[in-house]
């Protein structure tokens, strides 16, 4: 056989089957249980919100690609815009009005991602950027946490009522909503109550927070399902253990130390992990491949930073929840971390000199 006839194949000869679209598909799959539970818990308005955010993200992406003369379908088909839109929707208050979803989806894609050059170029996580922007721009709408209205239960809005809620709003929404547990804790602490008093008065049970029967943003309520999704991503090797582990461990460690020091002022670690966006951020947002460091040690430092900033903002800051700010601040440090923690180049010493020939 003539060797020259064989097709020339250049290296690498072994490669993983991972592609952007398969990674994004797996992320969506991992988010599905928690999302489905969110839709069940908060009814049709939450579903509308998810659809609106997804649509605006995808349309925004298509328009940007068009303006920049890039091929539309290959970039749209990789699913990254869908994941970004999905994550934005999941961090919104479930009964937020439609324009919150539209502004959030567009901001994440247009400002957060495409302005920096599209997929792989954005220094900040687009979904968190949109969420923090919305929180700062619309502090009122973004902190109305509606109480659970499970689908098929008598007080759940019908599909038509759901459309009405999303597009026209609800009269007296304050009557059917309450502060999130984190926010409630913060205001009550300022009023001088102690942690055990507050938790007893607000019917807090760790089990409810674990399963998710509390109020909160769309998907962050169910710790269990988020954990399940996160473990799935770990098992599929989409993410590594470094960031979720170091982030949650930091929160747990800090919370335990301060809780031991003064249990009346500092709430325990379980509360911190199960409430707010800690689990969602640890598994799905901080682990964003584009905006987190590349090396294992870098990821651990990144996770510790996220966890520490989150705990600091929650405990001493003016916002009840600080996950979004924590992730964005550490995103800003990612290039620095990567600069100082470069791995050794194969065949070279740490200083970049070629290895001596051993004879």
């Amino acid at each position: 056989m003539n060797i020259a006839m064989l097709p020339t194949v250049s290296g690498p000869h072994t490669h993983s089957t991972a592609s952007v679209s398969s990674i994004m598909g797996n992320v969506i799959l991992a988010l599905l249980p928690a999302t489905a539970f969110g839709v069940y818990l908060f009814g049709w308005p939450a579903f509308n919100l998810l659809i609106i955010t997804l649509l605006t993200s995808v349309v925004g992406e298509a328009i940007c690609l068009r303006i920049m003369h890039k091929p539309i379908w290959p970039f749209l088909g990789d699913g990254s815009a869908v994941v970004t839109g999905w994550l934005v929707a999941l961090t919104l208050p479930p009964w937020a009005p439609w324009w919150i979803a539209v502004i959030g989806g567009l901001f994440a894609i247009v400002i957060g991602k495409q302005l920096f050059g599209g997929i792989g170029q954005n220094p900040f996580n687009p979904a968190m950027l949109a969420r923090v922007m919305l929180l700062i721009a619309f502090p009122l709408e973004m902190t109305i946490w509606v109480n659970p209205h499970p689908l098929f239960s008598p007080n759940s809005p019908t599909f038509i009522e759901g459309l009405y809620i999303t597009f026209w709003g609800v009269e007296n929404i304050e009557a059917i909503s309450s502060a999130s547990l984190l926010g409630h804790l913060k205001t009550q602490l300022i009023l001088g109550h102690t942690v055990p008093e507050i938790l007893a008065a607000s019917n807090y049970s760790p089990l409810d927070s674990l399963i998710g029967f509390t109020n909160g943003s769309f998907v962050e309520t169910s710790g269990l399902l988020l954990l399940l999704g996160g473990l799935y991503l770990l098992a599929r090797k989409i993410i590594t253990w470094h960031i979720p582990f170091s982030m949650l461990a930091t929160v747990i460690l800090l919370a335990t130390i301060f809780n031991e020091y003064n249990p009346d002022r500092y709430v325990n670690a379980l509360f911190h992990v199960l409430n707010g966006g800690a689990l969602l951020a640890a598994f799905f947002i901080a682990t964003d491949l584009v905006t987190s460091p590349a090396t294992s040690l870098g990821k651990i430092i990144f996770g510790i930073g996220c966890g520490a900033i989150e705990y600091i903002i929650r405990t001493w800051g003016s916002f009840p929840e600080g996950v979004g700010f924590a992730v964005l601040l550490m995103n800003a440090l990612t290039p620095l971390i990567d600069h100082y923690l470069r791995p050794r180049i194969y065949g070279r010493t740490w200083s970049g000199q070629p290895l001596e020939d051993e004879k």
Partner: protein
Amino acid sequence: MTTDYKNIIKEGLWGNNTVLSQQLALCPTLAVTTTATNGLGMGLATTLVLVATGWIISMVRGVVTQEVRIPVFILLIATTVTVADMIINAFLHDLYKVLGLFIPLIVTNCVILGRAEAYASRQKVLPSMLDGLMMGLGFTAVLVVLGMIREIIGSGTLFANASLLLGQTFAFLELTVIPNYKGYLIMILPPGGFLVFGFLMAAKRLIDQELERRNSLVIPLKVIDVPA
């Protein structure tokens, strides 16, 4: 040596625009442009200072030696700004309450020292004053446009409090563009300033590209004309 006044005007207003091209004076640009009126007031105050310092510095340029020029320039600028500060406090007191903090800071506005260094210290009095005026007007124009965009998106009004700056005759400028607007707070906050500023810079580049494309369409025709 003849001075190309037309070029000074063109460069000051557009080609070498303080904010959009030199990217100087970003601090006041982003800080005060929460409304168009604030932008206009800040722009006019800076223009006043620019013309005055252009005049003074151009006059002393023969006396000041190379080694001490920076302290001397800063001293002259600081004096001029203090005078402007007192004038605004005396005659436009309501505006002063809004812009108060930022007016003394015109001293540190890099465009003033920048023009003193780059232009007034080497040129005659009249071109220096014209340069100051045009740079100042270019600065004012950007500040007003930036302020208008941020004000409309951020709070749904346009030229709010304009009568404080320009007197009651200009009260008609005060518009409510979007009635019952809840406000888009981020546009009033610093991030909104950066966002709009970025889009304005991009717009200037687009326009420049378009102008260049049009000019390049004209040139070949001239080349063909010459040998004929």
